[in-house]
């Protein structure tokens, strides 16, 4: 059961203006939150207000506006950090989770070239472990790192039902494992992975453990420390926040050791013509003028998420997700991917409609006002593993309702008939 009363649900929906749009003459049913979540008005309003009244240079200038902007920016970081159980200096702002992962991989490439610091170096024959269920963002940066260093990618298998077990990860760990990079929740399968157990195994072998938390942040309580990882990455735009900003969380130790990648202003202490000294994290990873309004908007978004209650949101999405899963599963000739039993799931289900290509499925759904994701969802290898080229995905947010689920299931039930398959 969803913890939200109909009145609460209506109040949440009123906060997201896009939900009052019509698509193809139907009220919008937004089921693409896993790609990008809608934004609450309060966050966009505050961001606009801030941009109009408080735009100024952060960390420079002695004038009042600059001081106010600096204070607001620091406060934003502190409140985003608090939301994910981090300390502010452990939270590095990036463009998005993709950039966060790239920063780690690039730091390792740079360290490998000069042979230090040891924790970040890779040698030929060293191994990088990922799972079969990774998003391209948590695969390709590692492929490039492997290509540059002579390291090897090892892939932890999932079961046919899409489950990633700690044992499966263990089966590919060796004394050469230097990185273990896994997703907390696959963006295709929606299954919650046993990240803590995987991270413990990875760290026990001396590997750096990287967790992609994009699909779990803001759809459940994200407490970065509890993963037991070295790094956790996430994006604001999948947490009801703005595009253009994301985060790299790292333990204090690992961020202190990690070499700088991008350099320039704002990250330095002393600068001479031939060398410079850098500020500690997070500043040493944030050269240039920061993402001021995005940080303000993201922080305000998370205040709103907190006011609704992140545990209530998780409960709501999980309960509704079960209805969605059952509804889709009951449609003949529709095959859900990731049907493992006895696992926890987020409110997300991907499926193939027999005889109808996902693009056609998505186009038909759109004609009924339903926004779904179609394609390979930036997970081509996973789709190959599942024996399909692409799929259609429904994903839920705090604003999703039982009506949304009913409309989506009803429309999906008519797809095959429209394309002459029934």
């Amino acid at each position: 059961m969803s913890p939200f009363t109909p009145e609460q649900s209506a109040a949440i929906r009123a906060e997201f203006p896009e939900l009052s749009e019509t698509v193809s003459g139907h009220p919008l049913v937004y089921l693409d939150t896993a790609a990008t979540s809608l934004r609450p008005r309060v966050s966009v309003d505050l961001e606009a207000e801030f941009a109009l009244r408080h735009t100024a240079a952060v960390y420079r200038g002695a004038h009042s506006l600059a001081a106010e902007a600096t204070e607001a920016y620091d406060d934003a970081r502190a409140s985003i950090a608090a939301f994910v159980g981090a300390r502010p200096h452990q939270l590095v702002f990036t463009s998005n989770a993709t950039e966060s992962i790239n920063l780690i991989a690039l730091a390792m490439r740079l360290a490998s070239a000069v042979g230090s610091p040891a924790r970040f170096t890779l040698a030929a024959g060293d191994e990088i472990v990922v799972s079969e269920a990774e998003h391209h963002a948590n695969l390709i940066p590692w492929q490039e790192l492997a290509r540059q260093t002579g390291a090897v990618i090892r892939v932890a298998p999932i079961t046919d039902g899409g489950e990633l077990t700690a044992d499966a990860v263990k089966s590919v760990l060796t004394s050469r494992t230097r990185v273990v990079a896994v997703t907390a929740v696959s963006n295709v399968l929606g299954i919650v992975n046993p990240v803590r157990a995987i991270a413990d195994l990875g760290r026990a072998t001396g590997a750096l453990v990287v967790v992609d938390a994009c699909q779990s942040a803001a759809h459940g309580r994200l407490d970065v420390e509890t993963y037991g990882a070295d790094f956790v990455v996430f994006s604001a735009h999948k947490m009801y926040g703005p595009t253009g900003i994301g985060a790299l969380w790292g333990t204090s130790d690992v961020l202190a050791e990690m070499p700088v990648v991008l350099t320039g202003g704002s990250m330095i202490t002393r600068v001479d013509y031939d060398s410079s000294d850098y500020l500690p994290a997070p500043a040493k990873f944030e050269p240039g003028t920061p993402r001021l309004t995005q940080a303000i908007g993201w922080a305000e978004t998370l205040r709103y998420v907190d006011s609704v209650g992140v545990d209530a949101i998780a409960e709501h999405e999980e309960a509704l997700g079960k209805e969605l899963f059952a509804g889709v599963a009951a449609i003949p000739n529709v095959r859900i991917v990731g049907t493992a039993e006895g696992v926890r799931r987020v409110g997300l289900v991907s499926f193939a409609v027999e005889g109808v290509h996902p693009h056609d499925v998505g186009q038909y759904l759109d004609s009924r006002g339903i926004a779904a994701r179609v394609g390979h969802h930036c997970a081509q290898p996973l789709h190959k593993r599942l024996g399909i080229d692409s799929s259609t995905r429904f994903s839920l947010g705090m604003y999703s309702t039982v009506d949304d689920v009913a409309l989506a299931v009803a429309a999906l039930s008519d797809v095959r008939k429209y394309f002459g398959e029934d």
Partner: protein
Amino acid sequence: MELDDLYQQIILDHNKRRVGYGLQPGGFPSHQYNPTCGDELTLTVRLSEDGSTIAAFEWEGKGCSISQASASLMASEATGMSIIEFESFANGFRDAMRSRGTISLSEDEYGDLAALSGVSKFVARVKCAMLAWVAAEDSLILTRESLN
């Protein structure tokens, strides 16, 4: 934009009929891939003995109904054309697809392919409709290069 503008019955039929489906060995196949959706299509243009006209389009691939129907309709409408005719035919088709609904394909000139006119209103689907045509043009270039 009505869904039936996009999915005319002719398109749904050709999605299943797939005229020209099946590649024979030899010739100069062109493989095209649409990275946004993962659709793939390989097509070989076969020329007449004197090299002046298109004797057959052979293709295989997987993709949405628009990409499959477009390949099938091209094979049924453009087989037998001279190479010069086909080039202008393909240019006209491309212009219509990219017109955002402002250019309709005439039935007199394009026959059943006119059913694809609606695609141009769905910008995200234009690439689907063009996949086989890009492959055909590429296969023709490869064929010609081999003759020089």
